[in-house]
């Protein structure tokens, strides 16, 4: 069952349960001993409860990481992922918003999608991100390399 489903124009539900969606882990979500915060899988202050993920059917984990490091406000230290089916099992959904207009001055990553946290209560947000965290940790880190800067041969 999908609760509170209300899509905006241009948004499309993703339904292939096996499709993996990638999440980039920024420095403040990672502790020195390698622990990842559950908050890493939920929304932040600038995404309107639509935390960004990338579709594995359209981009590789490495491409997604490189794009993030080169365009987002913080670099990515690694890639983890959950499947669309795992999100649906958590009673939420993944939305492909590639057909939505990009707000002025913003960029959208190739293969962009989001896990829909819109309309959730504070306790429900905590529960959803905890569930996504458990699935992602069970799967383990998706292998990628550090993104090299322009003109840099090695990371």
């Amino acid at each position, binding site marked *: 069952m999908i609760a509170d489903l209300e899509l905006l124009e241009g948004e499309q539900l993703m339904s292939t349960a096996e499709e993996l969606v990638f999440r980039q882990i*920024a420095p*403040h*979500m990672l*502790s*020195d*001993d390698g*622990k*990842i*915060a*559950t*908050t890493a899988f939920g929304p*932040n*202050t*600038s*995404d309107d409860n639509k935390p960004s993920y990338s579709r594995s059917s359209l981009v590789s984990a490495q491409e997604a990481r490189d794009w993030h490091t080169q365009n*987002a*406000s*913080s670099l990515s230290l690694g890639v983890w992922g959950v499947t669309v089916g795992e999100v649906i099992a958590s009673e939420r959904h993944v939305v492909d918003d590639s057909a939505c207009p990009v707000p002025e001055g913003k960029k959208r990553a190739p293969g962009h999608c989001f896990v829909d946290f819109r309309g959730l209560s504070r*306790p429900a947000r*905590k*529960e959803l991100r*905890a*569930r996504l*965290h*458990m699935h992602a*940790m*069970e799967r383990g880190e998706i292998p990628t390399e550090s993104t090299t800067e322009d003109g840099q041969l090695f990371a």
Partner: protein
Amino acid sequence: MGEEREPGVKRVRLTGARFEGGRLPVDSLIELQKYQEVVRIAAAAEWRQAHPDDKLPMDFEESVSLTIDRIDDGSADVFLIFEQTAIYAEYQAEAQDAADAIIVAAYSDAPIPELPSLTPKEDVQFRETVAGIGATLLPGQSIEFYPDGSDMSPVSITIATHKEAVERLSGVDDFLVAPDEGAKEPGLQVAEESLVGRVTALDADRMRFTLTLGDGEEVHGFYKTQPALLEDFRKLVNSTAEGPLTRITGDLQTRAGQIFRFRETSTVEQVQFDNTAWGARLAEFAALRSGWDGGTAEQITSTALDAAQKLLQGIDRAQIERPGVFPTDEGGVLIEWSKTSGVRSIEILADGNFEMFSLSRGEKNGEHSETRDLTNAIAFAGAGNA
């Protein structure tokens, strides 16, 4: 600091045959006028920044005026003082600092400092006027300018050093910016914010301090509306940059995201964390600026940091498994134990409350509760160890 400095006196020494015997040719007065003009430009900018909706008072310019206090024997050794008009004194003092800083930079390898109070037009005028100081010098003559007091090392302006200074001041990049683009420059932003660093200098006369951040950047600030903070600053100042970690909160001015200075200071707190890995992590959180997540994340409050430290000490004493410790975008700290089998967390809110949550894999709903009681929070953490 600056004990040798004669308060309010600016020393400018002119050397060369033309000035021998303490003579001061009339045509060299223009050098002193240029210095006065530099300070006036900066003082007017400071005033306009503090009064964005008002016109510059009619008497402002003549109130920021230099007078020759005395000329000592030897070469023309001129001691200047400013005519002090009490209501404008603070603008003149800040402007004099700005003028001195740019002169020192122009005659050294230091980068020319940006003066965010100036509009692009004023900035050009300011640099041009500074570049004009020394233009009347002839071979064998020099101007020794004493920025830090009459007994400190002077900046030496000669024909050769003046030429190099003019190049530095010309700011080639500035001239490549179209005038209309310059006009759109947003200028200074002011927001209540905290910075963490070490107080490495204190000027009680000017109610001014220097905070050195972890990356070595120096931020200046004032505490003019809170003179009682002087005692706090005195306990914390340490010029060797090995003093106590200090959190300063106040009206922080920035320009294009870059820190300029604290226009005013509201609180000064020593930040102390345990000498542990957790302590180091909490110290990192204390230094996060607002927007640290790339969005609008709030600074981590001192209340939350204190509560986090106490909770972590309790967790340590109770020999509870080591948690992950993370900042939250609401200004709190998240302490959590996460496994593939479940998640248990204590979120310390900005106000110091403990928000507790646990969810085991397969459970339909998690458990949520909140407390202000540290003992309850530690007990909740320990329950996950069972």
